């Protein structure tokens, strides 16, 4: 049975309902990320915010980006962050004080940034078409491996360098070398 464009018995569109639900999930979990006391729970809330952002990408007609968001952010970056949390947690670390002493300045700065962005967005008339344009994956592939092939190659070199650099930085020093290696 096909589902209609609108909610039954009302004129509310499904897309709007999904947008509101996903936006509330996104902002709520992002707020939990920056305010919760237990940092592992912050990491889990971050996964929830990434997932709701993937849903918003689907609403924007971009399934490839949604899949990439799930694979890269939820699958790789979140796991990396959770590993780093578990490697750097100490039992005697002070967990009472989550925020710095100047946190209220940061809060003021964040409110000012949000107000500036919202004011700018709402007072500007964008050249918007007023409807979401679906992005075909084959179009992205054609453009990525045609016009944008040089940035693609540069990014692959950057990723290689990042992997080597990450291993080198996080590597444990070899214990008690015989010769002096300074």
């Amino acid at each position, binding site marked *: 049975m096909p589902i209609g464009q609108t909610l039954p018995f009302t004129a509310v569109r499904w897309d709007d309902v999904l947008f*509101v639900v996903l936006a509330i999930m996104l902002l709520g979990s992002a707020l939990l990320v920056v305010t919760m006391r237990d940092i592992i729970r912050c990491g889990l809330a971050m996964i929830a915010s990434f997932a709701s952002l993937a849903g918003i990408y689907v609403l924007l007609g971009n399934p490839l980006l949604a899949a990439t968001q799930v694979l890269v952010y939820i699958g790789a970056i979140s796991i990396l962050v959770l590993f780093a949390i578990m490697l750097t947690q100490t039992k005697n670390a002070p967990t009472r004080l989550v925020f710095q002493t100047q946190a209220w300045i940061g809060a003021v700065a964040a409110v000012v940034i949000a107000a500036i962005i919202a004011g700018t967005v709402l007072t500007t008339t964008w050249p918007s078409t007023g409807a979401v344009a679906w992005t075909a994956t084959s179009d992205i592939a054609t453009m990525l491996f045609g016009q944008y092939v040089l940035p693609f190659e540069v990014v692959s070199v950057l990723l290689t360098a990042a992997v080597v650099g990450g291993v080198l930085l996080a590597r444990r020093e070899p214990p008690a070398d015989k010769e002096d290696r300074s």
Partner: protein
Amino acid sequence: MSNSLDSYLVLSGLLFAIGTFGFLARRNAISMLMSIELMLNAVNLTIIAFGAFVKPLHVHASVIALIVIAVAAAEATVGLAIVIAIYRNKKTPLVDEYDSMSQ
């Protein structure tokens, strides 16, 4: 609502502001890195929203967002490796205790 560019841009602005607050206010270095990820996600949402609603940017935006995601992954790798390396020396993940230069 889901058919207007403004709502997506305001949403990404709010997400960016939340990330800014987390970066400025949290003491834990990994929390700060998570806030940076939130800000990068907000920027990506802006790019995708422009790509979906503005005709000349249509496919370009997706490619740019993919490249941003790759660079964000590289940044997370190196940033977390640096945090772990510092933790090994200082035995704390809190950034306000990295005060060797003021002593």
